[in-house]
């Protein structure tokens, strides 16, 4: 109740004023990433985020008496891939499991199998522009059941990688950028599909403010399921805390949720703090020698978004455009188009502009070769930009290829002098009044006549040459 009152008061304050800049934001992130394994972490059930509730379950993931976990080898392999992609310096040589003992309705065994003593990897980093965000650790664990209308155990036992950062982030924008980058990293190395909207990537954020180096109490923001939520919730919380301190209050250690416009208290963390970790006796330590030997670090590095951006820049893009393409997963498409002979910047502009405007997802009928041909035709002057735009939706359907479609639809630019003079003659014929006025000295009317010519040419004529033909006819 008190919290409500404070929040209500703060809401008003937050609308009208900014916190003083004396407070330095301190943000750390814990991400849970569902690994893209064919089975759950400790049983043979096939994971699904969309199957009907409780249809992907067995005795093991339901924690039935007499059931025993058997660790999949896929989860550590994907975890290690993610760790390498996150630039982790220390990779565990042995896979060790622990139990986190606590009672919660979504935890069928009354404990979660996790890694408490030795995480799979430590000391990684992620670069966001010129800032380095340190990764403390990456460890494996099993997911809990999902509480919806029913308790859905499809999620229970799915392999997760929990990735924890140092408190290196300084704003909501930076936190969101980090999550975006992390999502790209784990997705591109094949560790996870990492779709926020499907809960394949879930974000908890620890937020506090410091003043003059003094460490303050932090709160945990849970279940932020979009980049926007990460950004807004962090910023809201930073301002709330700064204002609390300014008004002489203190921040309580608590777990908060985000309702879209403000943070709210979810549950007190005090009781859950004692997890009574113990070694998992059902899963003997497993040497990772073989998995580590299988890791192709060079190949994994090539999958990272930073490598993708490098490749884009090497192909001729500026770094900002490269980032945009990588964020939108369009870099591979672009590079293939470039390989097919297209100009990188021009293709990128098409991809981010006209193509993106048509659809958020590229249809399979639209190939990098099509983009290269389209951009090439425009560059060669055989296709006007206008015709190219007209052609684009055609390429999103079953089509014959750019050249054939230009031909079939008569979209090609025509250089032919007869074609130009023919159009000019038609327009002059149809516009006797304007022609007369022009000839009488109203030279501004050339623009009107030119416009009519262009329209009649349906974008196929080179404006310069058409203009010349018009001028010649008007003389």
């Amino acid at each position, binding site marked *: 109740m008190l919290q409500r009152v404070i929040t209500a008061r703060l809401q008003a304050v937050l609308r009208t004023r900014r916190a003083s800049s004396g407070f330095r934001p301190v943000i750390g992130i814990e991400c849970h990433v569902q690994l893209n394994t064919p089975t759950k972490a400790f049983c043979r059930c096939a994971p699904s985020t969309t199957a009907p509730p409780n249809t992907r379950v067995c005795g093991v993931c339901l924690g039935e008496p*007499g059931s*025993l976990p*058997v660790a999949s080898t896929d989860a550590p392999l994907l975890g290690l891939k993610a760790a390498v992609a996150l630039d982790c310096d220390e990779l565990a040589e042995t896979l060790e499991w622990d139990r986190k*003992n606590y009672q919660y309705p979504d935890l069928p*065994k*009354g*404990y979660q199998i996790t890694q408490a003593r030795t995480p799979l990897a430590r000391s990684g980093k992620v670069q966001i522009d010129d800032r380095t965000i340190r990764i403390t650790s990456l460890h494996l664990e099993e997911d809990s059941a999902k509480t919806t209308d029913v308790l859905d155990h499809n999620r229970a036992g799915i392999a997760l990688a929990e990735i924890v950062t140092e408190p290196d982030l300084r704003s909501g924008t930076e936190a969101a950028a980090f999550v975006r980058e992390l999502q790209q990293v784990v997705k591109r190395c094949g560790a996870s599909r990492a779709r926020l909207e499907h809960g394949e990537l879930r974000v908890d954020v620890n937020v506090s403010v410091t003043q003059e180096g003094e460490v303050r109490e932090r709160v945990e923001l849970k279940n932020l399921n979009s980049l926007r939520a990460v950004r807004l919730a962090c910023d809201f919380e930073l301002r709330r805390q700064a204002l609390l301190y300014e008004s002489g209050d203190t921040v309580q250690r608590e777990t908060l949720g985000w309702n879209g416009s403000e943070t709210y208290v979810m549950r007190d963390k005090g009781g859950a703090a004692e997890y009574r970790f*113990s070694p998992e006796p*059902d899963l*003997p330590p497993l040497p990772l020698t073989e998995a580590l030997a299988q890791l192709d670090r060079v190949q994994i590095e090539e999958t990272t978004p930073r490598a993708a951006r490098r490749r884009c820049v090497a192909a001729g893009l500026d770094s900002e455009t490269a980032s945009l393409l990588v964020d939108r997963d369009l870099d591979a498409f672009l590079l293939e188009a470039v390989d097919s002979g297209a100009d990188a910047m021009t293709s990128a502009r098409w991809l981010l502009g006209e193509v993106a405007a048509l659809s958020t997802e590229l249809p399979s009928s639209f190939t990098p070769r099509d983009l290269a041909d389209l951009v090439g035709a425009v560059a060669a002057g055989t296709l006007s930009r206008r015709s190219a735009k007209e052609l684009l939706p055609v390429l999103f359907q079953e089509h014959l290829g750019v050249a054939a479609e230009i031909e079939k639809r008569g979209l090609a630019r025509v250089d032919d002098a007869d074609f130009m003079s023919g159009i000019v003659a038609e327009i002059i014929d149809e516009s006797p009044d304007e022609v007369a006025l022009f000839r009488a000295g109203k030279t501004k009317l050339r623009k009107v006549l030119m416009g009519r010519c262009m329209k009649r040419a349906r974008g196929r004529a080179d404006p310069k040459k058409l203009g010349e033909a018009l001028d010649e006819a008007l003389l």
Partner: protein
Amino acid sequence: MALALAAAIRRGERTCLAVAEEAVRRARTSKLNAFARVDATATNRKLPDGPLRGVPVAVKDSICIKDETPTAGSRAVGSWKAREDAFAVARLREAGANVIGSTNCDEFGMGSTGETCQRGFTRHPLDLRRAPGGSSSGSAAAVASSIVPLALGSDTGGSIRLPAAWCGVVGVKPTYGRVSRRGLLAYCSSTDCVGVFARSVEDAAFALGLIAGHDDGDATSSQECVPDYLSMLSIPTNDRVASINVEVDDDIESVVAGASNALKADQCDALSPQFLRDCAAAYHVLAAAEAHSNLARYHVNHENPPFGAEVTRRVALGKRLLGERHAEGLYERAVDVRAQARARLDDVLSSVDVLMLPVAPTAAPKLNAPSVITKEARGSLARDLRDDLPRDYANDFLTAFASLAGLPALSVPFGRTSGGLPVGVQVVGKAFDEAAVLRTARRLELIRDDALSSPARRVLLSEDD
């Protein structure tokens, strides 16, 4: 006996039906309360043609039987029914054995007398006022009273060896990981073992051979290949035997000394009584910690599961030892003692093949016997844990060390007390050397039977025999 019965069935001297009917009838009418459930369909079951075809077996009620509720002696399991047979049960069935029912046990294996069973305690087959030993009480009693020639049990700190010794049957706890734990309701997962009860070492060896072996469904199950235990019994060897001196009742001591003399055992001084008791204390710390975790699943649907007093006590102890009392360091000391036990036994067993000692300080006690007070050395784990140990903790003194170290161990009956109660000799071997343990037991069995038939050598046995 199991193998003899199977042979008689193969020869057509007995029928599966008649054997099953007799076993079911006796299980039902027995006054021992050995059975939690008797399966009436056992008499009209089509049994696969295997080496144990038609042999009735009983299964400890903490081991899953398909479509039945394994109560583990507890009300907490509720009406949940197992999806499939436990690994060991499936193996016995494949061999043609006829599972006739489930046997009572201490609740979730937490007890050494059978008295913590929420379905009532099992009685001793020779004296109804006495405890048969636990936790696999019903299985031991059912075999001892010849209702079945073979039964499955589980041994976490002594739960097969102790009731086997007290009831006078052979009880084998294999090496940790030798038999899959899949389908066994977990108590202390790092020491839980599924094993067998039989009336002869041959039967036990044969049954162990059936249930041993790798299981993909248990990550702690071993890949080590399984020898033919039965044929290895008769191989003449020079197994070096050493006996461990411990403080036990005089009757027990003289029986074990007899066994020791008969096998010309050396003396092993490397394992002191205090060390063995510290192992038992360490076992109780680890078991409580793991039990608190393993039994947490029964809390998911109950705020307070209907556990009995002993289970409640041990679970709460485990929770405290990992939680608010963690700072006392008892858990870490127990982990240390376990490591020491492994190292020390590795060392001892590098120069001898098997160790011999009593199973328990006493023979079967009266039900509800008072607790045994022991003097523990200052600074020992057993002393520092004194107030947290169960009442019947003394019964684990001589068995827990083998559980902690994961070694194979068995109890073979060898003589009686002056009061006529059976006394078991415990044989402990190297990891995965069940063959040597069984072979030693077989030698003792032959010496015992020889003595029984030769009045001149009755010195080995009490006068009641």
